[in-house]
């Protein structure tokens, strides 16, 4: 495991902790830094990271707090407070 991969993991944990403490802007900075490290080191972000962050405003999403999760036929729709929607499929 390289340093870059570890930094992304650490930043994911930090972003989640900051978001649960109500420090939304701080969580946003951690998400942005993790994305920047991933793109500079040509790594793909871990799946929990992509699922729980907003692509538009970089917020760390906490379902029920700053994100709405609704099930549609064959896919999940997560709506951030900024209005951006993210979809991913599920197997029935």
């Amino acid at each position, binding site marked *: *495991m*390289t*340093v*870059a991969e*570890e*930094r992304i993991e*650490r*930043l994911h*944990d*930090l972003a989640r902790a900051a978001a649960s403490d109500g420090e939304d802007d*701080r969580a946003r*900075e*951690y998400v942005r*830094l993790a994305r*920047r*490290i991933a793109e*500079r*080191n*040509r790594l793909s972000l871990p799946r929990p990271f992509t699922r729980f962050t907003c692509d538009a405003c970089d917020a760390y999403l906490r379902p029920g707090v700053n994100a709405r999760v609704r099930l549609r036929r064959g896919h999940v729709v997560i709506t951030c407070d900024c209005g951006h929607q993210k979809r991913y499929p599920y197997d029935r």
Partner: protein
Amino acid sequence: MALTPETLVRHELNGLPVRVVESDDSSREGLSGRVVLETTNTLSVEVRESPEATRDAESSHGHDEFRVVTVPKSGSTFEFAITDEAAGDEKSLGTTSELADTQPGFDTTDTDCAGDGVAYVTVDGSRLLSRPARRTETTGDSPWQ
């Protein structure tokens, strides 16, 4: 590549417990807290202040107050506390002096192992002068070119 004293300058600093050992500004010396934000030239340290210590803070209502202090990297010396399994392994290998002897090229960082698997790493702030994402990359040309 776990977070060890050797990889600390390339690793994530956010979230680590830190103490400002030396600083050009004497009022910043001795600050201890947690790194919450890193920029190219500064580290922001969240300092916990108990309500007894801050009598001037009128909003103290029994809880600890948190204050974020921005410390410039240049002209400061930081002491990071590393608590993980890697530090514990090194502690079991030998004493502090042996560890320092067996690490070549240890000019700007020195390790000070205390109990409970905590390693204290002292880093000169000028060693950290870089954009946060750039620090991880190995110097020179891009590895994929």
